[in-house]
C-alpha cells in the first residue's frame, strides 16, 4: 500500500494540474452557462416572437443533443469546412459545457421567474415600474433564491460532464486517474482515489453554493443571514440557557 501512496505523492504535480484543469473547465463552463441561461431564459419570455422562438429552439437543441456529441462536434467538425475554426481543447470543453448546461439552466431561469408570485408583478404595475426595471428590482431578486438549488444540481452535473475533457487531450482530473493507474498498476486504488477526489470537489462546490443560496434567501427575508448561519456560538433565543 505504501508504495502506491508513494507513487501518488510522486504524481502530485500531475494531480495539481488535473485539478486545475477541471477547475478551469468548471468555473469557466459555469460562468458561460450562467450568461447563456439568462440570455435564453429571459429571451424565451420576451413578448416578441423574434426573441422567444429562437430562444426556445436553441434551448431545446442543446438540451436534446447529447453533451458528448456537442463536445466532439466542436473538436472534430468545427476545424473543417465551412467553419475552419480550430478551437483549443480547453475552449471546446468550456463552450460545450457552457452551451449544454446553459440550456438546462435557461429553463430554471424561466421557471423561477414564472414562480414569483403574481402579486409582485401586479404591485410593480400598480406603481408603474417599467418592464426592465420591474425585472431588475423586483422579480429577479425574488427569482434568484428559487434558482439556486437547481443551479447547484446543474453545477455538479457540469463537473461530472467535465470528465469528458480527458478524451479531447486535456489533462484534467479524469486524465490523472489514468496516469495514476499506469503508475501504480492498481485499478482499484487509482479509481477509488480519483472518485474520492471528484467527490470532495463536488462536496466543496455544494457547500459554496449552499452559502450563496442562504445569502440569496436572506436578502428576500426568507431565512437567517449568512453570518447567523455560520456562527459557531448558538443563536440567542431569549430563553435562559440551562447550564449544568
Amino acid at each position, binding site marked *: 500500500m505504501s508504495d502506491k501512496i508513494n507513487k501518488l505523492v510522486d504524481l502530485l504535480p500531475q494531480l495539481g494540474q488535473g485539478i486545475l484543469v477541471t477547475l478551469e473547465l468548471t468555473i469557466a463552463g459555469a460562468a458561460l452557462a450562467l450568461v447563456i441561461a439568462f440570455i435564453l431564459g429571459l429571451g424565451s419570455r420576451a413578448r416578441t416572437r423574434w426573441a422567444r422562438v429562437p430562444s426556445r429552439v436553441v434551448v431545446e437543441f442543446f438540451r436534446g443533443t447529447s453533451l458528448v456529441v456537442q463536445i466532439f462536434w466542436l473538436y472534430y467538425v468545427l476545424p473543417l469546412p465551412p467553419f475552419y475554426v480550430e478551437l483549443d481543447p480547453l475552449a471546446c470543453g468550456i463552450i460545450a459545457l457552457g452551451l449544454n448546461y446553459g440550456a438546462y439552466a435557461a429553463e430554471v431561469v424561466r421557471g423561477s421567474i414564472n414562480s414569483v408570485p403574481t402579486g409582485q408583478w401586479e404591485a410593480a404595475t*400598480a406603481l408603474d415600474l417599467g418592464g426592465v426595471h420591474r425585472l431588475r*428590482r423586483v422579480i429577479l*431578486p425574488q427569482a434568484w433564491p428559487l434558482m439556486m438549488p437547481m443551479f447547484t444540481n446543474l453545477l455538479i452535473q457540469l463537473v461530472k460532464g467535465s470528465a469528458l475533457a480527458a478524451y479531447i487531450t486535456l489533462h484534467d482530473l479524469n486524465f490523472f486517474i489514468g496516469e495514476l493507474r499506469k503508475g501504480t498498476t492498481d485499478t482499484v486504488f487509482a479509481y477509488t482515489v480519483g472518485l474520492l477526489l471528484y467527490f470532495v470537489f463536488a462536496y466543496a462546490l455544494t457547500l459554496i453554493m449552499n452559502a450563496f443560496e442562504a445569502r440569496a434567501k436572506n436578502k428576500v427575508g*426568507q431565512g437567517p443571514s449568512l453570518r447567523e448561519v455560520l456562527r459557531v456560538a448558538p443563536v440567542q433565543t431569549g430563553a435562559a440557557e440551562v447550564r449544568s
Partner: protein
Amino acid sequence: MPDNDTTPAIEFQGVGKRFGDNVVLDGLDFTVAKGDRVTLIGPSGSGKTTILRLLMTLEEANDGLILVDGQPYTHEIRGGKRVAIPEKRRSLVRRRVGMVFQQFNLFPNMSVLENIVEAPIHVLGISREDAVARAEDLLDKVGLADKRDARCTQLSGGQQQRVAIARALAMEPEILLLDEVTSALDPELVADVLGVLRNIAETTDITMLIVTHEMQFAREVSNRVLMFDGGKIIEEAEPEAIFTSPQHDRTQEFLRAIL
C-alpha cells in the same frame, strides 16, 4: 373640497370584459367625479374587482373606453375604430392611479423605506432626498415611523398593509383604488388600517374607489355606494339611503346576508 373642475375623474363608456366564455362586464357605463369616495358592493364575481383591475391596467377591457380625467386611458377611437393606446401614454396615466391590494404585495427584497421610495425615484424622477422625506412623512402618518428600515417580512399584516398604503400614496395619485384591503387581516389589525384610510379620506381630495366588506367603514367614508350584480350596476345611492332602505331586491338580499 374639490375645485370647480367638473371633468369626471373616471368614466366608463360601454366597457365590456370577458374571461373566455365568462362575461364579467357588459356595456358598463358610469362616472366618478373628482373627490368622490365610491364604495362598490356586491357578491363575488359581480365585476367589482374587475373594475379596479381595469383601472390599474392589470386587465384589459374587450369593449368600450375608459377615461381618466377626461382622457382615454387604454383605448381610444381613431378613425372610427377602437385602437389600443401605446404603453408610453398609458404609463403617464397609470402613475396617477394608485392601488392597495388585499395581499399587500410589498417587495420582500427591499426594506420598508425602499419599498416606498422606489417608484417616486425611478418613475416620477424625484430626487432621493425628496423621496425619502416624503416617505418618512407618510410613514409618520400611518404610524410606522420607527419601522423605516425594517424588512417587510418582519411586520404584521396590518403593518404591512399600512406600508402598502404609504407606498401607493408616495406617488401622490389622483385616484386611489382599494381592493378588499382588510380582508386578509386578522380582525384586531383591521381597525388600524381603516383608521389610516379614514384619515386619508378626511385630509385629502383623492378620488377613492373602494371594494370592501366593511360596511361600517363604507358608510363613514363614502359619498356614493354602487351595488353590482352580474356585471351591472343595479342600484346606486348615498350610503345612508342604500343601507337603511335598499330599493332593489338583490341589494336587499345581499345586505341582509352580510350585515
